[in-house]
Structure formats: structure tokens, C-alpha cells
């Protein structure tokens, strides 16, 4: 008897754990629901939060200003989030959940190229339009996907801009060393920089990579030091930028210019490195210095956006915030143009977008990637990020050559 009861216990455990969630967050009559799997825990927590802030800022604005006007009707906006724990494998399941279980209307992209790539595949199969602003790797857009759009500039441009600025400085730098983390995004950044360097007469004296998530890059630093480059670049994310910078100081490596992707433009870079972050440059998707005059319907200039953002979130927005908001703006415009919630019409409207926003020009090439918006270059001066390139919007001249470590 007892045996049978125990058996049932075990079976019940098993069946109960099948726990298929039946709650469905369908699109109610008056609300457009966007779905997004972002990294709220795991190694990309901070970046995931910045992305979420960018989305929420837009949502709050729209809801406070009469909602989205689509086909003569006003809709409120809601965003359903899940945490992908910074793992692309989770993201695919969460994307399916958003689409099939929660019945969201549209998808907003995750943070990170790896995750964005995974979700893009699912968006394609389910014919669900997705706009993302945080995955710059071109491989996302070389699959022939029709339903994914990226408002940000491609990965290979991150450090190209830095080099464009560098070769115009005096004395003109001759040699370049560039290290990269072994992930898809960083390698594309590295390839883009190396290709540009070769086309413009810069001698690449070192171009190598280290394992993703490495804890020790001292050998890479030693090799860079031995190559005596004028410019040192690193293609990676925040953590590696910090590690590389610390390593360069520890081994007393002197160069005329230090440029990293992603790192310098994230607020934690300066707060973590203090004085050692001075004079470092980074390629950025956006900065407050840009002078675009956006179309009506949202904050039209970078300053207006930044001030309002600061008021709500108590910190100035960085480019991760801005690119996330821009992704939402793309949807806003496409929905108004399409005049309906029909996914095909919205997709077509997205494909044909051509609008200036506080973030820059939002327009997609045939692959869905925004190759039309230029990047900017920021430099860290006195603990603050200052735009130094392009010259037309630069708030200050770039400090070149970089000061020796002890003088900062």
C-alpha cells in the first residue's frame, strides 16, 4: 500500500513538474506588447540593464504622450521581459515563449551579438519582426533574414573610426597592434580595423586573439610591447578592455594612442580604472555631442534625450541606452507608416525606413543592417567621456599622443 502511495508521489512530482504555464499575456485590444529577452543576470548584466532602460524610457514617453497612433487608433505600449541569463541557449526558448505563449506583437532585440543571432533565427521562422540595437556582428545580417533589423552600425566600424581619426594626427602613426577576444563580434571588429589599416598604409605589427573570458592577458601584452606599436587597439567588451588597459600599464607599454571597442564608452570603465582611463579612446554608436535634428514624435536632439533620460534614471545615457531607444523609435515610425499591426505590413514599413532621429539616421540596407549611420569617437578626459571625432561635432580636440601613465 505504502509502496503504491510512494509511486504516485513520484509520478505526481514528475507530472506536476511538467508545469506548462497556461497564463497567456496576449495583446489586449488597446495595448501593443513588445517582447524582449535581455540579460538581467549573468556576465552581461550591466549591459542588459542599460538595454532595458533604453526600452523602458521610450515606453514611458509614448504612454505619457497619448500612446502609439496606428491606423487612426491610439495604443498603449507594454514590454514583456524575460531574463536570458546572458546565455544564447536560453534566449531561443524565451523568444519562443514570447511569441507562442505570451503572444507578443513584436520583438525587441537582446543584448549581445550571440544572443541576437539566435533570436533572429527564431524571428525569421515565426515571421515576427524584430528590431535590435545591441548586436553589431554582421553575421546576424548575412543569413538572408527578412524580419530582423539592426539600428546600430556594423561591428567592423567600431575601431575604423578611431583609425580614421588617428591617421590625421601629427606625427602620423605608422604601426598598429590590435588584440581581440575570441568571440564573433570582437573578431569582426578586429578584421574591420585590420582591413582599414592595410588599405591606408598603416603597418599592422601585431594582430592576435585571446580566449573569450580570459583571466590573464599578460602574454598578449608582452608581445604587443615587443612590437613597439604607435597605436594599440583592443577588440572586445568591457571586461577585456579593463584587463588589457591594466595590463598595458603594468608592463609599462607606451603608445601614442589607445583605443578599445565597447569598454571606454560604458560608464563602469572610468569608475573602475580611475586615472588610468585618461586619454583612452573608444568607438561609439552615439554620444551626446551629435547634432542630429530628429523627426517629431520623440525627443529631437541628443541633448533633450539625455536630459530627460538623466531625470528619469539619474545618470547620463550611454550609447547602449540610446541604441535601445532607437530600436523602439524604428518600430514607432514603422507602425505609424504601416497604419496597422499586421506583421507583414510593419516589416515592409521597417525595410523602407529613412528617418533622422536623435540617434542618427535610421535606414536599413537590403540585409537589414544600418550601414548609414556613422560612428563617433570618444576620449576620456578628466573622468568624462568627450566626443573628439568627427571634427564637425567634436567637443574637444583629441589628446594625442596619449600622456605617459604616470602623468595622468
Amino acid at each position, binding site marked *: 500500500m*505504502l*509502496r503504491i502511495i*510512494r*509511486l504516485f*508521489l*513520484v*509520478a505526481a*512530482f*514528475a*507530472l*506536476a*513538474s*511538467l*508545469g*506548462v*504555464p497556461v*497564463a497567456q499575456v496576449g495583446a489586449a485590444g488597446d495595448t501593443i506588447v513588445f517582447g524582449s529577452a535581455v540579460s*538581467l*543576470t549573468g556576465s552581461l548584466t550591466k549591459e542588459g540593464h542599460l538595454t532595458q532602460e533604453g526600452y523602458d524610457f521610450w515606453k514611458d514617453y509614448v504612454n505619457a504622450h497619448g500612446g502609439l497612433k496606428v491606423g487612426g487608433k491610439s495604443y498603449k505600449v507594454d514590454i514583456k*521581459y*524575460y*531574463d536570458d*541569463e546572458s*546565455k*544564447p*541557449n536560453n534566449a*531561443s*526558448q*524565451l523568444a*519562443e*515563449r514570447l*511569441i*507562442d*505563449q505570451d503572444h507578443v506583437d513584436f520583438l525587441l532585440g537582446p543584448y549581445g551579438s*550571440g544572443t541576437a*543571432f*539566435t533570436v533572429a*533565427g527564431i524571428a*525569421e*521562422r*515565426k515571421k515576427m519582426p524584430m528590431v535590435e540595437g545591441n548586436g553589431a556582428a554582421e*553575421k546576424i545580417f548575412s*543569413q538572408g533574414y527578412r524580419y530582423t533589423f539592426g539600428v546600430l552600425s556594423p561591428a567592423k566600424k567600431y575601431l575604423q573610426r578611431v583609425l580614421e581619426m588617428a591617421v590625421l594626427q601629427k606625427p602620423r602613426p605608422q604601426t598598429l597592434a590590435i588584440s581581440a577576444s*575570441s*568571440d*564573433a563580434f570582437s*573578431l569582426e571588429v578586429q578584421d574591420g580595423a585590420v582591413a582599414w589599416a592595410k588599405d591606408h598604409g598603416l603597418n599592422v605589427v601585431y594582430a592576435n586573439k585571446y*580566449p*573569450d573570458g580570459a583571466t590573464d592577458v599578460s602574454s598578449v601584452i608582452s608581445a604587443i610591447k615587443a612590437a613597439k606599436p604607435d597605436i594599440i587597439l583592443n577588440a572586445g567588451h568591457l571586461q577585456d578592455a579593463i584587463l588589457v588597459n591594466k595590463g598595458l600599464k603594468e608592463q609599462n607599454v607606451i603608445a601614442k594612442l589607445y583605443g578599445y571597442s565597447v569598454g571606454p564608452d560604458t560608464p563602469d570603465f572610468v569608475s573602475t580604472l580611475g586615472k588610468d582611463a585618461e586619454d583612452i579612446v573608444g568607438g561609439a554608436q552615439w554620444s551626446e555631442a551629435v547634432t542630429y535634428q530628429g523627426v517629431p514624435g520623440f525627443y529631437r536632439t541628443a541633448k533633450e534625450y539625455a536630459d530627460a533620460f538623466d531625470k528619469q534614471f539619474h545618470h547620463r545615457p550611454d550609447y547602449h541606452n540610446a541604441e535601445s531607444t532607437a530600436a523602439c523609435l524604428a518600430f514607432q515610425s514603422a507602425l505609424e507608416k504601416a497604419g496597422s499591426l499586421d506583421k507583414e505590413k510593419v516589416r515592409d514599413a521597417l525595410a523602407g525606413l529613412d528617418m533622422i532621429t536623435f540617434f542618427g539616421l535610421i535606414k536599413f540596407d537590403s540585409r537589414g543592417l544600418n550601414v548609414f549611420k556613422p560612428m563617433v569617437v570618444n576620449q576620456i578626459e578628466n573622468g568624462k567621456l568627450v566626443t573628439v571625432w568627427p571634427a564637425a561635432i567634436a567637443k574637444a580636440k583629441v589628446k594625442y599622443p596619449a600622456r605617459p601613465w604616470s602623468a595622468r
Partner: protein
Amino acid sequence: MTGKRWVFISTLAIMGLLLFVPSFHNDYINLTFRNILMYAAMSYGWNLIGGYTGYVSFGNVAFFGIGAYCSAVLSKTGVDNVFADVGLALVVCALFAIVVGLPILRLRGHYFGIATLGVALGLTDLANNLDFVGGSGGLNLKQADQAHFYLYYYAMWAVTLVCMLATFFIARSKLGYAFVAIRENEEAAQVLGISPTRYKVIAWALGGMMGGAAGAVFAPANGFVDPGTAFAVDNNVFPIAMAILGGMGTASGPFIGALLLSGVNEILQEKFLWLHSLFFGAIIVLIVVFLPRGLMYLVGLRGGVRRWLSDLRAFRV
């Protein structure tokens, strides 16, 4: 029939029910159960070497990854057939297990575990650096359309069923007795004429083939493979956790563990946006403290609550 036999039959019954999952026409439900089946298959693979033979492997994700890459490479050469994928994966994993297993299965206990971890880590880095398998960018396979999406579900289902039945019959065969003998007392087994190395390699190879088959079906279903996806830490830890929670060294344990852990994870994800890890960890802590031998321990336990408590006291210090 013993309680364990009943549980196994119930497990098969649940598998029968799972055949009807595609009828929901809901890709999310489909994907969720496909993942459960995948983890169950991987867990069965681990169970053979870890549960029955007593050689804990911390690197069985290597087989899953190899299987996934087999499919990816085949797709690269134009072959997109799930039978071919699984077939190749089985062969490659078996060979890998034999070649790598012969030297490292001579190691006892912890050392074997670490060696397998080393193998798995090494493969990850290697995949990241070999252009042949796409480096860190990985390889894309033919994107699954809706019809194939269901096909891959059934393929995974079939793989898991085979793993389940294979485990059941192996456990009751001479092979199974050899495994358990090695686990209980390797020297005694040797004296009795069971060659430990030979049977350990067989156990690892069979288990590896299970993991490899799961990976081979996963890859085309997922549409792409890269080192992070194939050799993910979760793919290493979860199958072990599922086998432990369900009951190591049993034919139903891995499946029950897979259902339980996945179910709990799903519910927590739904309820808690980012605190879910905390509760997930807390729940596992509670389960391990009160059921250190897994759920199957409850089956066939004579003596009720009193026996349970006294067993718990025996684990304490």
C-alpha cells in the same frame, strides 16, 4: 513487480503522452519538451558512466558538442539528413570515447572527473580556434522550417526513448552487472574476471553515444552551432544534476530529474524576472538536503518516514 518497475512503466507512459506534444501547435511548448528530452538523453548518457559504473565524469558535454558539430560539418558538405547526422555522431563519439577513454579511465575517482573536465574545456577552446568548424563564429545549418521543426521533435523523442530502453536493458544484462561491480569494488570485480578498463570504456562509449545523438539532433533543430552553444556549462551541469535529483544508477532517474528540474526552472522564470536563480538554487539545496539519493530513493523504501529520517542522519556528521 517492484516499485522501480512501476515507475519505469509510468515513465514510458509519460513518453507516450509526449508523442502528442506537437498537436498543441505551439512552438514554445514543442521547444520546451524537446529540451527536456534532450537533457534527459544527456543525463542517461552520464548516468551510465557516473551512476552505474561510479566514475563521475565532469566532461560529458564533450560528446554532446561533438555530436552537434558532426551535424554541422555534414550540413556544410551538403548533407542535411538527421539519420546521417545521428549515425556519424554515434561513430565519432564511440571512437572518441575509446581513444581518449583508454588512457584516462585508468585514473581513479576525482582524477578521472578532472581529466574529463579538461577534455571538455580543451575541446571548447579548440573549436574556438579551428576554422574548419567555423571558429568562434560557429557553423550554420539549414534553417528548420515548420515541418522540420516537428521532425526534430520526434527525432529527439526517439533518441531519448532509445536511451531509456537501452539503460533499462543494459542494467539487467551482464554488462550492467559488470558496471555495478566496478562501482562497488573495482578490485573484487577484477578478481572475478571483469576487466575494469574494458568495461569502463564500454560504459563511457555507450554513454557518450547517447550524448552525441542528442547533440546531433539538437544542431539542425537549433539551426546553428558554435562553441558556446555546443559546450555550454549548463549542458555539462544540468544532466548531472538531473541524474542526481532523479536517482543515479536507475533507469527512470534521469528522466524524472529532467522533468523536475526543467519544470521548476520554467515556473520560476515565469514568476521571477531575475531572482529566479536564487529560488532555483534554494530549491535544489532543499531537495539535496532531504533527498540526497534522489527521488528514486523513495521508491521501494521500506520503513516509511522513520527509515527516511534515520538514513538522513547517517549522512550527517
